[in-house]
Structures are given as C-alpha cells and as structure tokens.
C-alpha cells in the first residue's frame, strides 16, 4: 500500500523555476502511513489551501516541506526560501513580542530597523501589545505576533502556514489576507492548512487530503 520511492527526479525542464514540487510523497506519523502518495506543484505567485479532516496529515505535510521531518518516500523540491509558521509559534514567553520579532529577523539576516519592525507589527495590529512579555498575551495575540514575521518575508519565499487564522479576530484576519494577497502579487507562494476560507477572492488551488482508514 506504500508507494515505491521515486528514483527519477523531475527534470529541470518540466518544473517551474522557483516553485514547489511535491512528488509522490508518503507521510507517516508514528508507525502509521497517513498519506501513501501525494503529488502537487505550486508555481510562483500560486496559493494552495490544504484541507482535510483532523489527522489527515496537513501539519505533517507542512513540516515535511519545511524539512523538519523526512518523508518516508518521494521527493520534495523547492528552490525558494521557506517561511514556516506552525502550531508552535516560536515565541519566547519571557521576552516581549517586539524583541521576539527582532530576534527572528536577526536570525534570518532580515532588516531589523525600527521602522520596518513597527510596520510589520502594524500589519497585524500587534503594536499596542508588542512591548508586553509574551506570557501575558492571549493565544490570538501571540498568533498575530508570529504572523507579523510574514511582513518581513523576502518576496519569492514559500509561506507554509498551519491554521494561520486560528484564534484571530476579524481585523487581524483581514490583515493576514492583505499580507497574503500582497505576497502572491509579488510572486511569492503560499501553502496553508486551513478549515476556514483564507484570502477569499484570490484564485487558489486546493489540495484535499483524505483520512486513511
């Protein structure tokens, strides 16, 4: 039932220059195969919404693309830089939201000028609580701080978003939609696992994962 590992890699000619190519990927969680053979392509400027019931492997697929776990078979290739925002938001709870964002930008060699950071926080209306220690913030507020990284992203990056809108209020959701739209317009790529509509009005592909028996 498990797909054979693909030996032949997709030739350079038939894949988009900087896109994401998922070729016959098999995913396991624990000892169980949750997706036997997944294939999908995202070209620059493209967005794919990842849907499917709980346990169908949405988060696992995103982590595999991010290189945080190895697929059991198949290949994933992506020449673009990857920006991954998973369930765990990567925020140190003892530090302020602003400090967390500055540290993350510094880690990735991105600009850390005051104006740039301020604008990123403003994109998700995270400015008012950016100077409080993260441990004092609600889940939705933390989510907004994590998503503020998107405003610092390089243009051609692939965004891997795991339930990005979970816990967001309407205003923050609109801010996220604006960031996604702007990123797609400048040739970026987005793959988001979601149960709710995201960036409505944008054309997108859907990759529906089915739960394996």
């Amino acid at each position, binding site marked *: 039932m498990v797909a054979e590992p693909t030996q032949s890699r997709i030739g350079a000619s038939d894949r988009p220059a900087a896109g994401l190519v998922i070729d016959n990927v098999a995913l396991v969680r624990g000892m169980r195969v949750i997706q036997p053979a997944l294939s999908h392509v995202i070209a620059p400027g493209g967005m794919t919404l990842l849907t499917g019931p709980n346990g169908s492997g949405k*988060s696992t697929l995103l982590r595999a693309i991010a290189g945080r776990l190895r697929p059991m078979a198949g290949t994933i290739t992506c020449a673009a830089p990857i*920006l991954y925002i998973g369930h765990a938001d990567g925020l140190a709870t003892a530090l302020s939201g602003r400090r967390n964002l500055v540290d993350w930008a*510094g*880690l990735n060699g991105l600009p850390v000028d005051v104006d740039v950071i301020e604008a990123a926080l403003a994109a998700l209306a995270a400015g008012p609580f950016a100077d409080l220690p993260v441990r004092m913030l609600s889940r939705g507020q933390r989510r907004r701080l994590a998503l503020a990284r998107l405003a610092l992203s390089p243009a051609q990056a692939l965004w891997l978003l795991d339930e990005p809108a979970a816990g967001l209020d309407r205003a923050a959701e609109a801010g996220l939609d604006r960031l996604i739209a702007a990123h797609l317009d400048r040739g970026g790529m987005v793959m988001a696992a979601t149960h709710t509509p995201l960036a409505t009005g944008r054309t997108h592909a859907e990759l529906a994962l089915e739960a394996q028996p």
Partner: protein
Amino acid sequence: MTGRKMNTGNIKSSLGAQIRRDIALGWRGRGQALVMLGFFLIIITLFPLAAGPDEAQLRPIAIPVIWIAAMLASLAGFTRIFADDVACGWVDQVALSPLPLALYALARAAVHWALTALPMLVVTPLMGLMLYLEPVGMPPLLLALALGTMAMTLLGLIGAALTEGARGGTGLLAVLVLPLAVPVLIFGVLASAPADGGIVTPHLMLLGAVLLVLLALAPLVAAMALAEAEAETGA
C-alpha cells in the same frame, strides 16, 4: 532536499542574534542559575556537617567534594538547554534560518556555561577555605574546574538534545551523561592537585584534550538530534 534557507543574511549576524536572545532569556531566567548555585553550595556544606569539622578529615576530600558538587549541580540545569526552544517552536525557526543547528547548539552551551558554571567558579575559593584547602591550591583547582565544567556542559548538550521529548528526561539524562563524565572527573581531580606545584600538568592537558574532542563532536551530535525534534503542539 527541500527549500533553501532565507539566505539574505550571513551566519555571523545570525549567530549574533541568537546569542543576544540567549543572554536576554538567560538573564530573565537567572533564578534558575541561582538555584543551581544554591544546590552547589549545599552539597559542599553537607560534607563538614556529615564528617565533622576535622581538618585532617576534610582536607583530603576537599577537591573531590567540590568536583562532585559541581557535576551534580550542573546536571540539574541541562534539561533546560533545549526544552523551551523545542516546545515553543524556535528550533523550527532556527532550522530554516542561515544559522546551522550545530552553531545554535554551541551558542546555547556557551551561554548556559557562562550563566551557571561561572558563578560556581566564583564561590569555589570560599568553599575551598571551608574545607581547609590551602589558598595556594586554588589556581590549579579553578583552572581545572573551568575546563571540567565546560566539558560537562558539552556532554549535557548531547544528553539534552538526545533526551528531548523523552519521558523522564532528567533521570535519563543523568544516567546518560554521568558515565561519560568519568574521564572528565578523573583527569579533573588529578589536575586540581598538582604534585610538584606546577599548574600545567599532563592531567590538565588530558582534560583539555577531552574538552577539545567534545567541542568538536557535541554540537554536531546535538544538531543531528535536533534536526527532527518535534514541537509539543506540532504535527
């Protein structure tokens, strides 16, 4: 095989950002370093209480007691080296950044050593006096202890990365790390009490050699263990 990292920066500036973050976090979590220091002081203080304040009895065991106290106290802090960063997903972000995981692990170890082992070294002369150690014996002890705690921290780095996510991490870590620390203990104690008064002894050189081997290997082993570490709420 998957995507490129966000390669707009260089490794040096990434490492700088990581170290600044570690220091800020370490400073806000300094209570934990104080607890370790207290643990170190209490272990040593228990010996005069148990053996009696007799100089003839305490002086021969002074150096071994200080070494064992330093090892046990540092053991108490190792589980924290990676736990928070893995749980909150920071390791995921490091893995996608220009900073290699091995350098990230080394930065964690360096800051951890500075925040936990340095205070122990500072109070060691006082503890030595309590155990009737001659003041002239302090420099070799401090030098050997500095190298020894560095080596211990690197062993702890391996243990912390390997036991990350394992249930009962602390106990497992102790069982894993302490046997490996035996050479450090043996060379360290011998180097702390040089027979002929010279500080640089063959024992100290062997201790330094152990440290250098660990310096080369520990960050790489830790990076391999962290390469696929799961965040608590991930997947």
